[in-house]
């Protein structure tokens, strides 16, 4: 009896080893491929996306359309809810799909270690918008899946009820508008979405509107001290955040808000404004009582010229370790040029310069609003802002310190806005010195 058990155990052990190594072999075979018969492109590719909401619907249609053109390529999808957080640990291995998005967490200088170059910058920038942002040494590694712009989504009906006739342009006008919303309606003037956190990071996208100068973020800011000094764009922009929190122009208890329901609340006219990228317009319209009530306007600014800064969404890129680079390249081209993802799903415009502008954008041009891409950093200073920002733990594109600003506004902290601005300035100056000396 005892012997038998022993044998069974050994057998089980053997089985396990064989089974495991078997898996390894099978996988190896599957992922081979590349271009073979008829000169056509073939192989299996895995596409990783951040859109958990449409991966089983819209993306499946994409796969079908793509296969009409490339019948020998099999496309499978993987959607990650917390894209940046989940993909970055996986990138320490070789197995992170064939086509994926460049996570914003990864320092720009490290991109060539992980992604396949797509072409020379000189050539690519004639064809695509926003490719400069993450180019390294004159090579482009990713193309933006969409180009979006940041401003304020507002409910026209609520504005009309509050007696606001013209879309507010300056900070003072905007604050007055919010106050009249508070006085004349039951709607929440500015919904912050503090609890979800990430909506607060949307503000940073409007910094060029506040500065009124596309050179500010990448060229001017890294070369000067005290970006939060009074009168500078960051100071002015976040002062609005602080003031609205302080004057009770935001939701009653920001700690328990919820993004999904905020969309519906805005659609019902219970919220007057939210600071969000253009990608959100369609999402809010889709749950609104009357989609025509939902409008979009540039972020307030004291600058003379009103700029809608164009910002690149995630960049689509190819895994350096992919075994089917040709098929992956075909998907990238198809996705950028033919899927119409950027307009239909991302609420922006296509990165490809030969695609025409959507109708909706023309109305802004009539109002004298300019659409501009940020000027890329000077040679040798690529990614500098990002580096200083991380070292200083300010997090321009992270929610933490925005939450701190709001907490101070509500009165949950002892610090005033001046104290905070001073703290950020100090952190920035020290970090800047450290990074520059490296």
């Amino acid at each position, binding site marked *: 009896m005892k012997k038998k058990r022993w044998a069974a*155990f050994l057998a089980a052990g053997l089985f396990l080893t064989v089974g495991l190594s078997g898996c390894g072999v099978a996988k190896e075979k599957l992922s081979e491929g590349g271009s073979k018969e008829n000169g056509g492109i073939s192989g299996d590719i895995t596409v990783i996306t951040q859109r958990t909401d449409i991966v089983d619907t819209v993306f499946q249609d994409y796969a079908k359309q793509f296969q009409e053109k490339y019948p020998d390529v099999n496309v499978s999808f993987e959607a990650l809810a917390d894209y940046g957080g989940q993909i*970055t640990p996986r990138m320490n291995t070789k197995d992170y799909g064939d086509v994926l998005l460049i996570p914003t*967490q990864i320092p720009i200088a*490290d991109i060539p270690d992980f992604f396949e170059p797509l072409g020379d910058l000189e050539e690519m920038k004639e064809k695509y918008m926003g490719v400069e942002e993450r180019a390294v040494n004159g090579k482009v590694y990713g193309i933006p899946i969409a180009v979006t712009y940041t401003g304020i989504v507002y409910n026209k009906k609520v504005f009309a009820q509050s007696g606001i006739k013209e879309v507010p342009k300056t900070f003072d006008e905007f604050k007055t508008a919010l106050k009249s919303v508070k006085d004349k309606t039951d709607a929440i003037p500015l919904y912050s979405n503090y609890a979800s956190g990430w909506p607060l990071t949307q503000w940073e996208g409007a910094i060029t509107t506040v500065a009124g100068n596309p050179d500010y973020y990448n060229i001017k800011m890294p070369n000067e001290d005290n970006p939060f000094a009074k009168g500078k764009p960051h100071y002015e922009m976040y002062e609005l955040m602080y003031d609205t929190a302080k004057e009770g122009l935001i939701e009653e*208890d920001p*700690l*328990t808000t919820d993004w999904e329901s905020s969309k519906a609340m805005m659609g019902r006219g219970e919220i007057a404004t939210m600071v969000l990228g253009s990608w959100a317009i369609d999402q809010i319209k889709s749950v609104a009582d009357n989609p025509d009530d939902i409008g979009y306007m540039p972020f307030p600014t004291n600058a003379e010229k009103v700029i809608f800064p164009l910002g690149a969404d995630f960049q689509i890129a190819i895994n350096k370790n992919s075994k089917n680079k040709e098929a992956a390249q075909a998907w990238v081209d198809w996705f950028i040029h033919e899927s119409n993802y950027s307009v239909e799903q991302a609420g922006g415009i296509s990165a490809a310069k030969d695609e025409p502008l959507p109708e909706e954008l023309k109305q802004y041009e009539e109002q004298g609003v300019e659409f501009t891409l940020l000027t890329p950093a000077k040679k040798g200073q690529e990614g500098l802002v990002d580096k200083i920002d991380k070292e200083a*733990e300010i*997090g321009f594109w992270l929610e933490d310190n925005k939450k701190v600003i709001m907490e101070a506004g509500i009165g*949950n902290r002892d610090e005033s806005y001046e104290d905070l601005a001073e703290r950020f300035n100090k952190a920035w100056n020290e970090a800047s010195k450290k990074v520059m000396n490296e």
Partner: protein
Amino acid sequence: MFKLSDLSYKNQRKIIIFTFSLLPVVLLFTFAYLPVFNMFHYSFTDWNGFSKEKEWVGLENYKSIFTNPEYFVVFKVSVYYFFATFVQMGLALYFATILSFNVKFKNLFKGILFFPYLLNGVAIGFMFMIFFRPEGTFDTILGMLGLGSLVQHWLGNPDIINISLAGTSVWRYMGFNFIIFLGAISSIPNEIYEAAEMDGANRWHQFRYIILPSISRMVQLNIILAISGTISAFEIPFIMTGGANGSKTFVIQTVDLAFKYGKVGLASAMAVVLLFIVIVVTVVQRLAFKEER
């Protein structure tokens, strides 16, 4: 053919012990010790989590931890969880004792008390978000009891937020302590109670002189687990507030530094510091309990 029975009993024993423990040891090594070794290594570098190369910076990371008081301020939050631990222990012990006697619907109550521990932490986070919302469940209950005047911004008020979160934590983990206590109590033979009853001992005497001494080891274990849990409180505040509004704990801060600001080196050093704090606290506790005996 090779037969195991050909070997001496002693050798058989050795082989079996070796083969049986091989798998768990390999797993333990790969998933516990190896990462810890790596963490020690990272803590001496300036690795950002992605770069192929990491630069050796020696004790730089430790220096910046111990010279920046702001990195330690967050331990203030742990104090709330520390006090909550005792409430949690007290409740667990109370319920375990009551339910070890003959009570109606005993198993139903056991199930109800243990249930929160089985729930997923994320689900609990969302449940309590709704619970603490203005005009949410908690406010409604208070209103029904005529205590409407006590209504607060349970998460919005920075003086209360940690109490609310620690309360959630008690609700969640109490079941675990409870089940351990209950197991220990039920191993006490019935004869002892009977004898005690004959001697005229009431329930309190039974608890004080029979139950408590018999389960003192379990109390000790639970306290060690709870206190190291206190120092490294993470899940509930992370899901519910992400560390906002003064609810940031040491572990949330570590995670933020590593994954938001790309300072894996510094975060590893903080994790090492935390590890040592937990070890020291545990050793101190063990010594304290030993003296008692």
